[in-house]
């Protein structure tokens, strides 16, 4: 083999194919959404009605929002399981605020939700990043603690739909130019965070931490500070999600957001966020949420028993993970065999 050929070792057609496949993960999900949509439409044309499509966009909006925060956490090789509970707590407290201050402006209500979530996320972040307790344990503990608090509040406080001002309910149920407001808000969050994740050094640090923690330290990344921020943002977005939950349903039960953390993690993984950190985008996670919700609705429209919904979501999850694993094993093997063949020259 000539020296010239050897200089292109790193970009052999096969290994660059591997990276291309990874890069176009988002595109694959979009295709999947369209495919599900088309197939269901042929079976049941009412699936393409305005109301149905609006539901397809509004339905996953809150999961998308939580997924954005969860993506940041998972990218650092951590996980935040407390977001479902945080959402419930925030929905309750914001509802209670409306009960006491009926004329509270919408923006204040949203900020209040954000702040409540931020506090919860910051507590998670401090314990994980500085006390170095595994995130799984910390956020699982937080999940139960806050869920307990939710139950206690539920006993004392009743949030009546009449207490929630119409302007706030419009945020949850209304549309702008036919597009659900919730979806617009979620899209804005995805756009802003997506841009930040590509554009700022501090955000790139998150990828470095998850991709190779030791190398991140060598590159001068302030690891604990970044992990703390990821948890704080995840909490804040869960809190904001809670306020929007209140706007969507105008009432809160102690089960609000129960089990959401798993839906969110599933959306992230389906969307190509590697569960062991280092790669994935918020857009991917958002599309993952959109796909899972579309399948949910498609099964309903196709009159498939709702029992199958979760089974399908689970199957999709396994397919996504198996695919990731396959790609990385493939890459490893290509590398080893290529190396061996060079020795024979």
């Amino acid at each position, binding site marked *: 083999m000539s020296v010239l050929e050897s200089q292109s070792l790193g*970009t052999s057609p096969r290994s660059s194919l591997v990276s291309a496949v990874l890069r176009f993960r988002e595109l694959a999900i979009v295709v999947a959404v369209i495919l599900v949509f088309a197939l269901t439409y042929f079976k049941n044309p009412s699936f393409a009605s305005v109301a149905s499509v609006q539901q397809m966009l509004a339905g996953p909006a809150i999961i998308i929002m939580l997924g954005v925060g969860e993506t940041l956490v998972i990218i650092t090789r951590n996980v935040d399981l407390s977001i479902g509970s945080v959402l419930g707590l925030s929905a309750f407290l914001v509802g209670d605020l409306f009960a006491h201050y009926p004329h509270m402006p919408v923006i204040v209500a949203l900020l209040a939700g954000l702040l409540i979530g931020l506090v919860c996320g910051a507590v998670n972040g401090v314990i994980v990043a500085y006390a170095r307790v595994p995130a799984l344990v910390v956020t699982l503990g937080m999940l139960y603690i806050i869920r307990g608090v939710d139950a206690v509040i539920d006993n004392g406080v009743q949030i009546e739909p009449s207490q929630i001002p119409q302007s706030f309910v419009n945020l949850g149920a209304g549309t702008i130019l036919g597009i659900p407001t919730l979806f617009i808000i979620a899209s804005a969050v995805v756009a802003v965070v997506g841009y930040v994740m590509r554009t700022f050094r501090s955000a790139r640090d998150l*990828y470095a931490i998850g991709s190779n923690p030791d190398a991140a330290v*060598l590159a001068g990344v302030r690891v604990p500070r970044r992990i703390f921020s990821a948890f704080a943002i995840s909490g804040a977005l869960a809190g904001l999600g809670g306020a929007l939950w209140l706007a969507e349903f105008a009432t809160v039960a102690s089960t609000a957001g129960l089990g959401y953390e798993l839906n969110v993690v599933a959306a992230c993984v389906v969307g190509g966020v590697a569960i062991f950190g280092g790669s994935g985008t918020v857009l991917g996670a958002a599309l993952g949420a959109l796909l899972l919700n579309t399948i949910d609705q498609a099964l309903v429209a196709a009159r498939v028993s709702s029992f199958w919904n979760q089974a399908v979501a689970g199957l999709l999850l396994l397919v996504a993970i198996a695919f990731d694993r396959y790609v990385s094993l493939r890459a490893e093997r290509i590398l080893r065999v290529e190396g061996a063949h060079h020795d024979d020259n």
Partner: protein
Amino acid sequence: MTVPSVAPASSTGEPVLVVESATKYFGPVKALVNGSITLFAGEAHALLGENGAGKSTLVKILAGVHGADGGHVTLDGQPVRFSSPIDAREAGVAVIYQEPTLFPDLSVAENIFMGRHPLRSGRRIDRSEMVERARQVFARLGVHLSPHRVARGLSVADQQIVEIAKAISFNAKIIIMDEPTAALSDVEVQRLFDVVATLRKEGAAIMFISHRLEEVFAMCQRVTIMRDGAFVRTAPIEDLTIDEVIYAMVGRDIVSLYGEHARTPGLNVLEVEHLTREGVFTDISFNVRAGEIVGLAGLVGAGRTEVARGIFGIDRVDAGRVRLLGQTLKSGSPLAAMRAGIGFVPEDRRQQGLVMEMAIDRNASLASIHELSRFGLIRRSSERRLATEWAARLHLKYGRFANPVKTLSGGNQQKVVLAKWLARKPRLLIIDEPTRGIDIGTKAEVHRLLGELVEQGVAILMISSEMPEVLGVADRILVLHEGRLSGEFTREEADEESIMRAAAGQVKAGVS
């Protein structure tokens, strides 16, 4: 192999880096007694020594990974002390390790500029500038790598190129390469040489650590040799021959820790035939007989541990077979290897040999659990009995059996690993680095124990990086060089120099 001709450097002017009598202790262990080296701009300077000569410790001091316990480092005439890798980087010292430290999920360009991304207004990352600068660096190095490609799947050679590009992008004055060629093929080495020549022309000082002496002679202008943690000599390359270098690296009497012994080996226990794992080791054939210790020597990265893992079935092999007492072993199955009578004491006892949090007796009985159970339930009393018996036979020093094994000293931990395998009465014991990190007293005990085992007819395959151990303990010595057998010596024929030569791929002596 072809090597480029490089003009000798002018070692005139002020040195860039001077290290004087650096010392480093790890507890009572002296890793570095007298580390000294002087680097000039525009030279490629080889740092040579056996495994354990203190090269890596010296490198880690310069990289800011370890703080020195004594001595002086001056950079451009100024005394310096690096307390972190960032310090070293900012002072212009770049280290390229044998195993590069990249971010596999990120692009090549981002790997180069992580934490130092070029910015545009609003502190936003300027991606096109980043890619452009990566391109420029690769152009300067004369290599073709796409800045957009993710680092995952890059060959080791290309990963090193990325590391070198990183070093250049922050204008490193001193580039330390720790065995950069160990995992490279000839063409890749050639390309690395070209890159190093370019760097030298631009005035960087290169410190090059390699066990491949022919490369050192082809690429470097000066050589510094270390032995047992201390500086031996520095000389221009043209003043030395390969023989002189090897002598300076080895030149010491073997401590007579090991008594004389004459053994008559019995029948073949292990027969390895043409064992190959692509890219790792090739066409390995040898045998080990009952009642003999065969030593497997070679440099770090030569594939010794990998061969052992292949025999025991931990890693799959692509070709060849392993026979134990005439029976062909199912490949890729450690369970089959264990059932056939192989015991495997791994190199890294903390990660692979022991369950650190688990009790001493439970660790000892771990490999014999089937024999100790009745109806699928482990009998605690048998477990205790096994542990008591072996603790006595191996002179284990412990508090209580119920204590986690991590409370024991390194030597006693190793005894627990040995007990675990010896309890199975193996016909073949593979033991990888039997005395690494063990104090001298326990070391002698382990050697005595190995002697006793072969007396009883056990066959032993021992991997060791410590030359005196190989020479003192083994009856026969096999040497690996880059995944191939490069020499075989009887106890009488073997000496440090001939093994070192075979390990460096200098000769092919008596391969059967």
